[in-house]
């Protein structure tokens, strides 16, 4: 029980706000990769 408790953390106000923003940014980057890959497969990207 105490070991479980020690694994918990109290995020600072900055961490509380920053982490979800970073996760969303990475997710958007991932989506951009897939969208661009799809467009490249269709042959409509300049560098494909």
């Amino acid at each position, binding site marked *: 029980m105490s070991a479980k408790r020690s694994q918990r953390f109290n995020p600072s106000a900055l961490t509380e706000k920053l982490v979800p923003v970073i*996760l969303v940014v990475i997710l958007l*980057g991932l989506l951009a990769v897939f969208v661009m*890959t799809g467009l490249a497969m269709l042959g409509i990207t300049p560098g494909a």
Partner: protein
Amino acid sequence: MNFIPVLSTLVTFSFTYAVFRRYQKKGGTHLALWAFGLLLYGLGTLSEVWMSFAFNELVLKLWYLTGAMLTAAWLGQGSIQLLVRKGKLAQILTYALAAFSLLALVMVASAPLTGAQSTYNVAGTISEQYKTILTRGGLTIFLTIILNIYGTLGLVGSALYSAFLFWRKKVLANRMFGNILIAAGALSPALAGTFVKAGIVDALYVSEFIGAVLMFIGFMMATSGKE
């Protein structure tokens, strides 16, 4: 000589060693798969080092097979192995990936080169020049895309999902931050490929270095502390 692939190779092989040592210590198929994926990563960047000295057909093909086709897929397979614990789905996917990897090996090994190989510029990057040198059939290109989508989704998706769970439960801060770094690092080379497709800039070498460093730090963070 381009120094960035040298640095990437050093970082990646150190990372491979760290993951393999952990596999020896703790076991776990996911660690073996990650170590294999990182070995492929390192072979890809090592090929870039070689090609900055002289053109070699075998090394070009090794670069395409490891760096362009298989690295992301095997790293992603490690993450899928870690997350998909029920049933034999992860095992089946590993066998399927092994079969597709053999197919990729045969296709790349048998791909003919064009006459453009004589104009290869060692001062440039492979990523800027391989398309005019290596003849890739439609199936090879299709397989490359599928393997990269599968691997990127597996690796980045799993790391994002894990980081989100740790953040929501407010537990294991080291693993949460570690997974964020792994997700960002894994996305780095994929984004570089996106920039190339968009015709913006070819920053593959830099992105590979950033990706290797971020993932290595992320792995060390995630595996540090109490377990």
